[in-house]
């Protein structure tokens, strides 16, 4: 009785422990942070001729919104007023081919489902350009929690990470500003599944 009881207790304990571990793992997977770990791209820094980092968060982002008082800035202000941060990392290379598709894949590896979904993918094989936009949305409700943009050109690779609710329709207001590259019409091409426009 004692031995079998002990065995049962041990099995139950192990099952419970396993379930807790699994639960913890699932939470981590679904609880991905909208802020990407840009530091893990340091390997690319060694190949680049120039690396530029822009951190626009906290008080600085609030300040930026304070300056946007012109009529032309109204939509831009709408975009940034609820954001928590804009982070840009840009690598410039001396000649094409100095970074590999595997380097881009290393960035993509952080943008995995279910938390992240790719909403725009634009490839120009002749020019060797790739532009991808990813959104992180709430599992329930579909509210946008963050955005990532990969802009790869033959001699330049840029990663933009916007943390906070972003309205994709108004993203064009930020193009060319705050270190965010110009993406042309790509931002207007698609809308994410589950992305709810505010009235």
């Amino acid at each position: 009785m004692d031995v079998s009881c002990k065995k049962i207790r041990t099995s139950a304990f192990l099952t419970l422990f396993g379930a807790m571990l699994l639960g913890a793992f699932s939470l981590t997977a679904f609880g991905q942070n909208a802020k990407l770990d840009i530091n893990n791209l340091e390997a690319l820094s060694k190949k680049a001729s120039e690396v530029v980092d822009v951190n626009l968060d906290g008080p600085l982002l609030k300040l930026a919104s304070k300056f946007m008082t012109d009529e032309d800035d109204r939509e831009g202000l709408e975009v940034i007023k609820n954001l928590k941060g804009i982070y840009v990392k840009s690598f410039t290379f001396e000649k094409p081919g100095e970074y590999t598709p595997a380097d881009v894949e290393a960035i993509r590896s952080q943008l995995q489902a279910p938390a992240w979904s790719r909403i725009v993918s634009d490839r120009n094989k002749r020019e060797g350009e790739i532009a991808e936009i990813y959104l992180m949305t709430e599992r329930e409700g579909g509210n946008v929690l963050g955005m990532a943009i990969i802009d790869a050109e033959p001699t330049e690779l840029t990663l933009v990470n916007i943390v906070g609710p972003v309205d994709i329709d108004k993203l064009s207001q930020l193009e060319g500003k705050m270190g965010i590259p110009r993406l042309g019409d790509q931002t207007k091409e698609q809308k994410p599944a589950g992305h709810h426009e505010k009235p």
Partner: protein
Amino acid sequence: MRNRSNSLTLAILSLALLQMVPFPARAGDQEFHSLVERMSAYYQKRPMRFMGWLDFIANRFTPHGVSHFQMVIFDDIDSSRTPPSEDFESSLASLVGPSYQPFVRVQEVRSGEWTCIYTRESGKERFEMLIVSIDATDAVLMKMQLTPGALRKWVDEPVKRGRDSREEARQAEVN
């Protein structure tokens, strides 16, 4: 006539003496001064003298919205003291202190040149910007106050402005 000549001599002498004192000490900006001291201790090197003239002139020609410009150059630094790239940012952040927020960092990999730009609020409607530019031979510290309008230009074009300030630091070293 003689009195006027004496006053003129005294003024020139005072101005000359003033140049013997490093600028931050005169400016009464204790924080910048202590940053210069920390940098000085780190590189075991005193900053270049006679920077006061440059600051004096620069403050008269700063772009609109920029004021209280201060600059210090450490020349012929021992580059082996510059931390490796993976530790550079944290080492510099500890030198600069926690009150500054990192804003832009430009690293020119081949030359080993770094330009780090920090900002913080400085009273009502004023912002401080601290630019640290370090290459293999020199380290340049620049501090200035910006109006919201001037800072906005930085926020709108942080990459371009970061590159420009790297160039400005390079020019300052050459001059």
